[in-house]
């Protein structure tokens, strides 16, 4: 008796789950249905979410799921075909490029170098930034500031922002064997997100950190790099040196819904959304 009961309950539960998964929505005016999964970079995530919600307003029967995890996760998701798009906030390495069929640049982002607002330094060269982040320059007076020790704030190992930053500033350099070595000083505070870097730099005297230009606000002071202001216009013009692409990666034939989403992102409407926080590419 009880066995029948247990089996019955289990079956009912299982069936419930299955039907929930298999449920299909009826096509509407645009005719598009389906689900698009985008997984990867947490830098790209807020943009993806905004693009997705605008797209779903037009195509109510398409569900777009945005997952985080990081650029590493995004590249892996595209390689293993477990998402329609993997997203990355850094250029692919050569060996990664070989494993991924399609790469779409959906936006560009600049990385701003930020100081706590009380700091008097306003301009650093790429080389000075490199010296500071590798621990060769340790006092603000060496770069025209007050006599105070420099507190370097970095992102965690593997972060896309860190990857972009160390590569462009040459903090990461190829050694004799040709492998890139990240020489960020061991005396750096490490914070696991853009927000945490911003809070740390804003509230700690003598700090220097880096965040995406899209995340800049009044709590921290962005400096000029090589005499160029950290603005979106300067990134797009190619004048501002520390910038990076936002990529959507795919290894499969795009589904109609995924293709439509990509077309939407690269359309004038999509790029207008990109332009709110980042730099449009079309």
């Amino acid at each position: 008796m009880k066995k029948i009961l247990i089996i019955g309950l289990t079956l009912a539960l299982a069936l419930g789950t299955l039907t929930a998964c298999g449920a299909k929505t009826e096509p509407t005016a645009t005719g598009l249905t389906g689900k698009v999964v985008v997984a990867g970079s947490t830098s790209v995530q807020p943009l993806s979410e905004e693009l997705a919600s605008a797209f779903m307003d037009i195509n109510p029967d398409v569900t777009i799921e945005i997952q985080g995890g990081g650029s590493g996760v995004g590249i892996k998701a595209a390689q293993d075909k477990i998402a329609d798009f993997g997203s990355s906030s850094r250029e692919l390495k050569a060996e990664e490029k070989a494993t991924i069929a399609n790469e779409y640049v959906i936006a560009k982002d600049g990385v701003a170098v930020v100081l706590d607002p009380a700091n008097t330094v306003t301009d650093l060269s790429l080389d000075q930034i490199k010296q500071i982040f590798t621990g060769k320059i340790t006092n603000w007076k060496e770069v025209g500031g007050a006599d105070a020790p420099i507190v370097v704030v970095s992102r965690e190992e593997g972060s896309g922002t860190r990857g972009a930053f160390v590569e462009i500033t040459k903090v990461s350099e190829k050694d004799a064997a040709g492998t890139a070595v990240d020489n960020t000083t061991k005396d750096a505070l490490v914070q696991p997100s853009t927000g945490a870097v911003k809070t740390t730099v804003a509230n700690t005297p003598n700090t220097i950190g880096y965040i995406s230009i899209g995340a800049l606000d009044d709590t921290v002071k962005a400096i000029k790099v090589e005499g160029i202001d950290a603005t979106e216009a300067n990134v797009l013009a190619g004048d501002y040196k520390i910038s990076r692409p936002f990529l959507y990666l795919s290894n499969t034939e795009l589904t109609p819904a995924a293709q439509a989403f990509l077309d939407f992102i690269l359309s004038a409407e999509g790029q207008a959304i990109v332009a709110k926080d980042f730099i449009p590419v079309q």
Partner: protein
Amino acid sequence: MKAYEKIVEKLIIVCAIISTISVVLITVFIFRSGLPILMNYGVIDFIFGTNWSPTNGNYGILPLIAGTLSVTLGALIIGVPMGIASAIILSEILPGKVARVFKSAIELLAGIPSVVYGFFGLIVLVPAIRTFILPIVQLVVPKATTTGFSIFAGAIILAIMILPTIVSISENSIKAVPREFREASLALGANKMETIVRVIIPAAKSGIIASIILGMGRAIGETMAVILITGNMPKIPGGPLDSVATLTGTIAMEMGYADATHQQALFAVGIILFMIIMLLNAIAQISAHGLRGNN
């Protein structure tokens, strides 16, 4: 036995089996994911290497172990005397009604999410250490500097976080000391303080030790609060005002972005964490048994 009782009994067995299987699966999974890199990189190099920079292929976790142990030790130094003192006050000294108010306040600490502790530490404690503690330290060591992100900050926050565990378990074991012990001690002419120190604490010590072990377990495992306030600097610390990175914090921060080998290394860090906790538990169990044997 009634039919529903049998069903309930079976359900309970199923629950027990599921939780046991989970433990086994998690253990197997962590070891399977982490062991390859431990073998390739070398266990000794991994544990005693002083350079943690996964992007460069260096996986020495000694700085992380030092970070975890120093923050935990600091938390115990601050938290254990406070916790035991609170337990004694609550069970032996304060009248029942007042004690209940204090007790529920302390228990409330256990309900605060750890990220809130971390945020509190970040906004209040870290700047306070920089502005108030640093000048005092500089009177003795003029060259001292700190950003406030430090072992000290982590230890204070963790000490507060482990208080509820230490207080409630110690208090229970102190309350469980038979009334006759107190009466006999007082009858022999000992005053209240002597009774507490010489009779009650020794009689309750296995419970007190258990509370310290559980508190230590929580301190080692705590992740979120520690990420926010210790600075996450994978470097062997020179003093309590230096920044450190912990084992758990490093796993949590880096897992999201990690590529294949890096991810394996983080699982290997998990293995070491697992081992450390097992080892500490074993030591604690043995010492608790030893002490009980002396009674």
